[in-house]
């Protein structure tokens, strides 16, 4: 009983500070969000003596939505972990480039396959995790609330993660990644654990957020339909190297199941199972 009252009071306290309906777009200390270019040269990665990536050369222009597909164990998740700095390359180089082509340290975020929310923090506090320690708490609350609005979960801000559905939790995770307006967002099969209908909603949400904020997106998936529905460009990884690199220049939002997208899917599947 007292728990409910306690939580409602907290919501009200925030509500006083920021009216959800009239939240102005937050003024973030960082400049207006923008993507970052990525340049990989001869990137290799081995675990012990087992080679996982065998020489990747790749240029990703800023703001591109890049999807990586491939069989399990093809190295797609390893490549993602290298790009966000969770692992170190064995050989070669990874560089991030600003507009002027100068090397830069981007604000990079990751969405995992599992939501990885802190179960002991409210939904709002979980989103605020994405801000790090740099933003003052009061301002952080406002930014987190705005990010929750972006993922359409404003009304859940005071809930515990355990109370949310799988799709809602993943939306919170997306909000947490987006709250700091990253220049680079890596998603590691973010929809892999969701049901088919929730996936479609989430795809639309990811596309909308990307279209608004124009970060460089790296989307790892095993679902070629999802890849061609979302990405500007799809890469097939096979045994540690790039087997196919195609551009998807269909207008957005994309109609699902059209013949030309289906042809691309067939081309990708052929490359995967070659």
């Amino acid at each position, binding site marked *: 009983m007292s728990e409910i009252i306690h939580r409602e009071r907290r919501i009200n306290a925030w509500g006083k500070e920021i009216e959800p309906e009239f939240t102005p777009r937050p003024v973030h200390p960082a400049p207006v969000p923008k993507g970052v270019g990525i340049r990989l040269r001869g990137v290799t990665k081995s675990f012990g003596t087992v080679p996982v990536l065998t020489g990747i050369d790749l240029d990703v222009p800023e703001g591109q939505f890049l999807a990586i597909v491939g069989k399990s164990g093809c190295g797609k998740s390893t490549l993602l972990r290298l790009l966000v700095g969770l692992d170190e390359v064995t050989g070669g180089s990874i560089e991030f480039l600003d507009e002027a082509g100068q090397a830069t340290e981007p604000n990079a*975020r990751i969405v995992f396959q599992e939501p*990885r929310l802190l179960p002991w923090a409210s939904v709002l506090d979980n989103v605020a995790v*994405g801000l790090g*320690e740099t933003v003052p708490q009061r301002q952080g609350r406002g930014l987190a609330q705005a990010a929750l609005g972006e993922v359409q979960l404003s009304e859940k801000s005071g809930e*515990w993660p355990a109370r949310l559905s799988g799709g809602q939790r993943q939306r919170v995770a997306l909000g947490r990644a987006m709250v700091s307006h990253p220049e680079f967002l890596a998603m590691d099969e973010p929809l892999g654990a969701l049901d088919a209908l929730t996936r479609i909603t989430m795809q639309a949400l990811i596309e909308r957020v990307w279209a608004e904020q124009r970060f460089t997106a790296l989307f790892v998936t095993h679902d070629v339909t999802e890849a061609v529905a979302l990405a500007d460009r799809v890469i097939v990884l096979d045994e540690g190297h790039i087997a196919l690199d195609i551009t998807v220049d269909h207008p957005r939002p994309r109609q699902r199941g059209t013949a030309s997208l289906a042809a691309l899917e067939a081309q990708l599947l052929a490359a995967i199972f070659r």
Partner: protein
Amino acid sequence: MTLVADLGQPVSVPSGSGQPGQRRSAAAVLRPLLPYALPVALIAFWQLAASAGLISNRLMPAPVDVARAFWDKASSGELAVNIGVSGLRALSGLAIGGSIGFLLGLANGLSRLSYTVTDTTLQMLRTIPNLALIPLVILWFGIGEEAKLFLTALGVFFPIYLNTLHGVRNVDPQLIEMGQVYGMKGFTLFRKVIFPGALPSIFVGLRFSLGIMWLTLIVAETLSSSSGIGYMANTAREFMMTDVVVLALVIYALLGKLADVVARFLESRTLQWHPAFQTDKKD
């Protein structure tokens, strides 16, 4: 908390006719009392048996005699003093042993080096029953407060140490990785991820150690004291005052229950996020 939930449930059920609804709320009022039905029945039986002369008053006093002993000791102020002394001993033992156990548990959970150096030793010491140390402790500290404090602290140390270590070790590594990706390190990572993740386990340790705390204290106070519940019981034994002896046991039981209630309360306050503690289910 459960009491509120149990009472609240039938109220929210819309009662069609007055009759079944009323019957339900009567059952709902009685339900929280149900756990106490058996002890009350046992005491009633005990009283009846004692009054009927089935139990020798020299060996086992009637509940009424215990109540009278309570009244005597309480009105003379002796009881309050003794409870205060025992409570203070228990809490200081818990504070000392508990904090050492907590800190070592954290250190060994977080640092591989600290674990390697100390854990084997601690696991060996753990297998010695702390009460087996009484002869040694008396040689070291005499029979004063230090001996009781040492035994209690030692007793509560191990459950808290083991469970803190277990809790820290078992924090979801995926959450820790997430925290690191989002720039948490050092104390921030500890405060936001590791400590809250270990807390349920730490509470398990705390509740275990509360039991051991009273057990150790009872034995230590019966050995040699000039105050405390154990002293009260031991003196009463010398004068064959069985009612006071039983009174001491009842008080230990109540204090133990009180400690557990406090621990549960703290648990339900701090672990509100945990599905097991979300009593207010709503859709």
